[in-house]
């Protein structure tokens, strides 16, 4: 059985927001190291992998592997019934058919309990190889969101070019062209705005911009985001949850002409 308690419901609420746009149903895989999730979007263009380490919960208890098939739209509706600073507990029996969620107000005089029906989901698990990327750029997650949202007005696609000097997002469409360049700068007043580039080799790749915009639903999870790129390999967009886990998005590159 699973029993896991989180001091602030906000974390799980935000995580769900970060995943539910891409995937509507998937398994949460629970075991003694924590709760994880891996799923592809319907178009097989993107993959999201999420991990919440058991350390993030107090207490955390899960005796054996327990896959919980969940409709994320329903789960999200229920999580919206939790206030951000409610204490949240998730529970599931080994052979149960519901996921129980309990939200307690800080002064604990209000207790909400929801049982969400579980589903059997046949899921394919992809083994993701460790890759040494040619370029790893760490930047402000707010800026990343701004950039991809802005460039969406120009075209459906965006090309990301990374050199020692900086990272450039650019595209072209019916009304004209757009590009946004962030200069590499490890020293800067506001540390959160620094753009740090570790480069083996320059890369230039094209992506469908709407997926990038989608990924930025995870922005509230972390002030920083990292983009890891090698030519002809999926882009990795990672939001770290301090020491508690991560949300990682993989996005397949566009091939042929990126028009």
């Amino acid at each position, binding site marked *: 059985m699973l029993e896991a308690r989180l001091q602030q419901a906000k974390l799980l609420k935000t995580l769900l927001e970060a995943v539910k746009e891409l995937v509507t149903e998937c398994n949460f895989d629970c075991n003694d190291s924590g709760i994880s999730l891996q799923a*592809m979007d319907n*178009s*097989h*263009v*993107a*993959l999201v992998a999420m991990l919440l380490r058991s350390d993030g919960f107090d207490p955390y208890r899960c005796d054996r592997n327990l*896959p919980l098939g969940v409709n994320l739209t329903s789960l999200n509706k229920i999580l919206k019934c939790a206030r951000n600073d409610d204490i949240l507990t998730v529970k599931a029996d080994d052979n149960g058919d519901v996921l129980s969620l309990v939200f307690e107000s800080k002064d604990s005089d209000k207790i909400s309990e929801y049982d969400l029906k579980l589903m059997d989901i046949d*899921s*394919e*698990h*992809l*083994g*993701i*190889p460790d890759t040494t990327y040619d370029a790893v750029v760490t930047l402000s997650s707010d800026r990343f969101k701004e950039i991809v949202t802005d460039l969406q007005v120009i075209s*459906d696609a965006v090309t990301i070019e990374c050199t020692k000097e900086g990272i450039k997002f650019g595209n072209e469409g019916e009304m004209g062209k757009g590009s946004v360049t962030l200069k590499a700068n490890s020293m800067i007043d506001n540390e959160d705005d620094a753009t740090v580039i570790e480069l083996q080799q320059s890369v230039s790749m094209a*992506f*469908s911009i*709407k997926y990038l915009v989608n990924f930025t639903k995870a922005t509230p999870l972390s002030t920083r985001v990292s983009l890891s790129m090698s030519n002809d*390999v*999926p882009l990795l967009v990672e939001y770290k949850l301090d020491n508690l886990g991560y949300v990682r998005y*993989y*996005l*397949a*590159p*566009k*091939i*042929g*002409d*990126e028009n």
Partner: protein
Amino acid sequence: YPAKPEKKKPRDEECAVYIVQSNSKFLISKRPDTGLLAGLWEFPSLELESLETTYEGRSAKASDFLHERYDLDITKNKVTKRQDLGNVVHLFSHIRKVYHVEWVQVSEESVVEDEDQVKWVTMDELKKSPIPTGLKKALALLEKSQNQKKSTTKSNPSANKKQKVIKNTADIKSFFVSTNKS
């Protein structure tokens, strides 16, 4: 109960369909408000009495039919091109219908339009009109024919280009190792 019912075989019917194009527009007309496929739009179509017609025969019939029904005179040299597109078959419950499709390109939209019954529409508009399934197949024949031409001659503007956003993007699965869990 008198009858000894046997399994009925659908009866055969044939029909000539004329796809008349002027520039990038197509001539369509509306079926009667009652009857089979009532009120749907269709390409000019002529029911054939014989099941064994030839392209030449159907093509010859076109002149009279289009002239009488649509006041479109294709005998004078307004036709710039015409072509046999072959046939498509559509099964109704008791009818097996063969549509013989011919494409006729004319130089001007000389039909008096009567928006309620007859009109010239673009391919896009056509696709949005309520046309019978059988004629959608005829349309597919046309598109196929024109797309073939397009790749060689680039002459036909009507082969449309609705592009999906995710076009040209690789399948993410192709990059990772699938390990089916149970």
